[in-house]
């Protein structure tokens, strides 16, 4: 007998996402992913000055502020064909990377670790044993017996007071939880340390972006960070070295703690390398440009189809295949019509045909998210896509950190993990940790490049877009390989004003519904075949969805249907 489960909403971060599952014989047989809000940024941007767009797009999502700001200026610069000074590229790159470090650390420790870690079980741990275990696999200094005993005592105090605080929604004692008490204790300790580390990563963004959570230093054509090594108000040596100190600390945590924790946890759940592959078409765009013309990049981009080893490389942001073949379908989305169009030609006319009623079959239109496609195919985006593209094209940095992750799992668990196993729920977590290690190394590299370039006497930070902008028609697209995957902002400009503006965001690629050919999106496909031990507590489905790092306020072109229900797990 098949059962239907609704999880609404699933995300612990922003946005409203609803997942409907059909479970048959203890496994998911069909899944639907729907966003329950809508957003139409173009209705706000139409008629505005393209130089202002980034300030507005930065407000689309409160967690992904920086990424929407950067992508917007890139979009207008691409439309105008501007070259952006090297200093500006590097400053932006360091901001982007620091944001990614922050975001990935938060995702693992604060948003998804509870799917694998049983916090209450940490109370049974022996701090000395936990410390010995940790110190056998990592040189991270935060694993002393004293520190771990203090964490255990704090946890015991909270539990004794009947307050599980931030952990109260966890799945304690669920049969799918399997870590030894000592590993649970280490995870809780690192959760606490990660709070401090993510704050340090954000301080880098604040120093260079002049504020967080909304950076202020961007401009179409460059950045507004005046460079003067001796001036207290400009970007000077003191600020640059503060950035370096913070970066060293964050980097240490990422390579000695985060990567090791993911390897340690993964080895206890090896079957999760088998579940959750779903759509094995992958898209990643190149990012971290290292020249003014944006011809060379430190993060490689490419397209993988059907899990094949062959990669169609994307060399730069003017890739003709990419520009011509991204479309969005609204066949199953709450918009007027049934078209599949490129973002420059899209319009957003909402047409809500009613809620999906419990215990009924899926209606034709069931999501506020559109279904993006590349060359007609659903694509998975995110750290896994980027790591696979880098690995299969022999990018040295990617290969180095994939190998490091594999040998860490082997050292801890004596099991062999292969790159092919990355097509999975755990593979997405592993790839995110690998990418974070890569980003920490690249941030340092770009910091050095910036200091060297300034040392050569280059203080240029901005080119004026106005000579081109004031008249004429332009179409442009800005790309960014954001923490959740490929982000693109598509703009149409006429005589200095925005005529159309569409954001195709990572969570739209991953969380989008079926298209006009009934091809499911990556969330929907990845859930099929997942075991569900207890339909009342579908922890396994949460594991797969959280592995994508959902952030739905961004994903959806929009806003709250009723906005009052929270944390509901309905069993129908």
């Amino acid at each position, binding site marked *: 007998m098949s059962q239907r489960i609704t999880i609404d909403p699933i995300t612990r971060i*922003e946005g409203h996402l609803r997942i409907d599952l059909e479970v048959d014989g203890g496994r998911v047989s069909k899944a639907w992913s729907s966003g329950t809000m809508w957003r139409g940024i173009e209705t706000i941007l139409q008629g505005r000055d393209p*130089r202002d767009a980034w300030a*507005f797009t930065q407000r689309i999502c*409160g967690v992904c502020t920086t990424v929407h700001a950067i992508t917007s200026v890139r979009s207008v610069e691409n439309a105008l064909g501007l070259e952006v000074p090297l200093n500006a590229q590097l400053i932006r790159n360091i901001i982007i990377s620091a944001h990614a470090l922050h975001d990935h650390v938060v995702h693992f420790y*604060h948003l998804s670790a509870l799917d694998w870690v049983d916090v209450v079980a940490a109370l049974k741990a022996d701090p000395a044993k936990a410390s010995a275990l940790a110190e056998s696999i990592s040189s991270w200094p935060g694993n002393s017996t004293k520190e771990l005993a203090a964490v255990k005592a704090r946890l015991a105090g909270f539990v004794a007071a009947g307050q599980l*605080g931030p952990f109260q929604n966890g799945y304690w004692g669920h049969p799918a939880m399997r870590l030894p008490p000592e590993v649970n204790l280490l995870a809780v300790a690192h959760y606490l340390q990660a709070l401090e580390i993510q704050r340090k990563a954000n301080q880098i963004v*604040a120093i260079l972006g002049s504020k967080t959570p909304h950076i202020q230093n961007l401009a179409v054509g460059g950045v507004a960070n005046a460079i003067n090594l001796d001036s207290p108000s400009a970007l000077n040596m003191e600020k640059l070295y503060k950035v370096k100190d913070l970066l060293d600390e964050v980097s240490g945590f990422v390579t000695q703690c985060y990567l090791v924790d993911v390897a340690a946890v993964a080895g206890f759940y090896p079957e999760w390398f088998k579940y959750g592959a779903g759509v094995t078409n992958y898209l990643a765009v190149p990012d971290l440009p290292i020249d003014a013309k944006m011809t060379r990049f430190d993060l490689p981009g490419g397209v993988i189809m059907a899990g094949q080893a062959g990669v169609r490389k994307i060399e730069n942001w003017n890739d003709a295949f990419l520009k011509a073949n991204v479309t969005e379908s609204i066949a199953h989305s709450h918009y007027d019509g049934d078209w599949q169009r490129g973002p420059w030609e899209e319009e957003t006319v909402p047409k809500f045909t009613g809620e999906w009623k419990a215990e009924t079959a899926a209606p034709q239109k069931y999501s506020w998210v559109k279904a993006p496609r590349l060359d007609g195919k659903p694509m998975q985006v995110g750290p896994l896509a980027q790591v696979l593209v880098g690995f299969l094209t022999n990018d040295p940095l990617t290969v180095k950190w994939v190998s490091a992750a594999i040998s860490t799992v082997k050292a801890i668990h004596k099991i062999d993990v292969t790159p092919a196993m990355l097509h999975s729920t755990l593979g997405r977590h592993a790839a995110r940790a690998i990418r974070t290690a890569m980003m920490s190394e690249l941030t340092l590299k770009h910091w050095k490049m910036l200091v060297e370039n300034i040392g050569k006497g280059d203080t240029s930070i901005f080119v004026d877009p106005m000579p081109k902008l004031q008249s004429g028609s332009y179409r442009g697209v800005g790309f960014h390989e954001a923490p959740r995957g490929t982000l693109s902002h598509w703009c149409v400009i006429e005589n200095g004003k925005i005529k159309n503006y569409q954001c195709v965001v990572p969570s739209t690629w991953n969380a989008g519904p079926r298209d006009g050919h009934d091809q499911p999106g990556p969330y929907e496909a990845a859930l099929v075949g997942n075991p569900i031990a207890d339909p009342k507590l579908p922890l396994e489905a949460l594991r797969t969805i959280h592995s994508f790092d959902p952030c739905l*306020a961004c994903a959806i072109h929009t806003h709250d249907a009723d906005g009052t229900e*929270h944390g509901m797990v309905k069993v129908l």
Partner: protein
Amino acid sequence: MRGEGARLARFSVIGIGNVLEGDDAIGPTVVRVFESRYAAGDDVAVVDGGTPGLDLTAYMMGLEGLVVVDAIKTRTGTAGEVKVYDKKGILNRGPMVAMSPHEPGLRESILHAEFQGVSPPVINLVGVVAGSIEFGCRLTPQVRGAIDGAVEAVRAALQGMGVATVKRDPPLPPDLWWERPQHLPT
């Protein structure tokens, strides 16, 4: 509004909300109007926090006192009503700070800070009951009419924490850039 210096502050006033979503902009609006009318000392950081989700924890770590301004929804309130809650009231569920995607945020962020032992001892929420949170950059007249009262509630909350504020005379123009139709000065 300060950025990197904010971490040195002992007190903070944080406006929460999405300026693109109608009355949800009231949090950012109130802190910006507050800052244009009152000068607080160097140890007070005034922050337009947007919709930070769990990132809010980082902004409250180690503070002696925190004032949060946000749009709220209550069972009995009417649009534009200003209500002030203390930490206990916030953690007791109390108001649903639930209008928009940044929820769950405030309660969870405080709980994370509590667990880590870095939660501000005093927290006040200045809540303004929202009317409409339709997409767009405008407040409803009822909520716009609540700005003065909410700004005074922020000032009073700071005073309750022993923080003095000085009225600016004349006040500065508040930086509500999202309400302006045309090009923003850079």
